[in-house]
C-alpha cells in the first residue's frame, strides 16, 4: 500500500504513536477501573477521558503560545509546562 501521499515523517509518526499509546492505556484503565464523574475546580462533571481531552487541548495551546512568545527557546519548555498542566488537570479538574 502506497502511503506516500500522507507524507509521513518520523517525528509525526512518533507523535501519533504516543497519542495512540495514551488512548490504549486510557481504554485499558477504563476497562479495569470504570470511569466515574467528579466535579473539580472547573465546576463541571469530568471523567478521566474529559481530563485527558482538556490536557491535550491545553497542551496544544501551550505549545502554540510558546512558539509565539518564547522566540527561539527550546520547545521542551512548553512540553514541561504541558506536563505540569496535565498533572493539575488530572488532580484537580
Amino acid at each position, binding site marked *: 500500500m502506497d502511503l*506516500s*501521499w*500522507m*507524507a*509521513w*515523517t518520523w*517525528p*509525526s509518526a512518533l*507523535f*501519533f504513536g504516543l497519542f495512540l499509546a495514551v488512548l490504549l492505556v486510557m481504554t485499558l484503565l*477504563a*476497562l479495569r477501573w*470504570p*470511569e*466515574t*464523574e*467528579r466535579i473539580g475546580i*472547573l465546576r*463541571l*462533571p469530568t471523567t478521566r477521558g474529559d481530563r485527558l*481531552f*482538556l490536557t491535550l*487541548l491545553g497542551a*496544544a*495551546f501551550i505549545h*502554540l503560545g510558546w*512558539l*509565539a512568545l518564547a522566540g527561539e527557546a527550546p*520547545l521542551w519548555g512548553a512540553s514541561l509546562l504541558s506536563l505540569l498542566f496535565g498533572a493539575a488537570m488530572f488532580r484537580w479538574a
Partner: protein
Amino acid sequence: MSKPRDQRAWLLVLPVVALVAFSALIPVMTVVNYSLQDTFGNNVFFWNGLGWFRDLLDPATEFGGRFRGALWRTLLFSALCLLIEVPLGIGVALTLPRRGWGVAASLVLLALPLLIPWNVVGTIWQVFGRGDIGLLGAALNGLGIDYNYAQDPLDAWITVVLMDVWHWTSLVVLLCYAGLRAIPDAYYQAARVDGAGAWAVFRAIQLPKLQRVLTIAVLLRFMDSFMIYTEPFVVTGGGPGNATTFLSIDLVKIALGQFDLGKAAAMSIVYNLIVLTVCWIFFATTTRGQSEAVGERS
C-alpha cells in the same frame, strides 16, 4: 460519588469509529504531516519543522499578518452576527402567536430560510444585491445610495452580514420560541397578580428562563459563523481585496489557489483547535445543564 457505568456499550460504536477513521482521522493525520513540511507537488516533501507555525504566529511575517487579519475579520463577523441575530431572534419569538393557526404558519415561514442550501443562499444574495438587476442593489441605487458590494468593502460587509441574519435568525427564533413555550403559565399568573408590566415579565421571567436555549443558540451561531465559507465565497469571493476574506476562505486560497499545503495545514490545525475549544465549551455547557436537571429531579 455516582455509580460506575458499564462501558461495554462502547464496543457498538466501533463501526462508526472505523468510518470516522477514514473520513476524518486519516485526513487529519495527513494535515499534521503536511504542516511540518513543504512541497512543490509530485508527492515530494521537504522537512520544515515548526517553521510554518512560527510564521503563522508571528504577525511580522506575511503569512502571520494574513492569518491575523483573517482571524480578526472572522471574529468580527461572528460578533456582528451574534449581536444582531440573538436580540432580533428573541424579539421575533416574543411576538409570535401562542395558539391558533398562526403558530404553524409562522413556524413554517420561519423555517424556510433554514432549508435553503448554503450555495443557493449565496447565489440569491449575489443576485439580490446587484446594482443592475438585483432588487436590493437596484432599489438602493435608485434611491441615490451608492451601493456596490463588489467594489466597496463596507457594502460587502453589510451584504454578507445581512445574508447571515436572513439565513440564521430563524434558528434563534425557533429555539427561543421553544424556550418561551416551556415556561409554565403559573409564572405569568403570578406576574399578573403582582401587576408586573411586559418589561418586568421579560426581565424577571422570560429572559432567565431562556438562558439555557440562548446559550445553545449563541454557541451554535458562533461556531457556524466562525466556520462560514460557502455563502460569502459565492457573494464576494472574499473581496473586494481581502475585505471579506474569512479564515475558511483564506485557507482554501492558500491550499488550493497557491498550493501552499504546508502553510494551509498549519493554519487549519490552529483554526481547528479554536473550533474544538468552542465545541468543548458547547458540550460542557449543554451537559452541565442536563446534569443539573437530573440533580434537580433526584
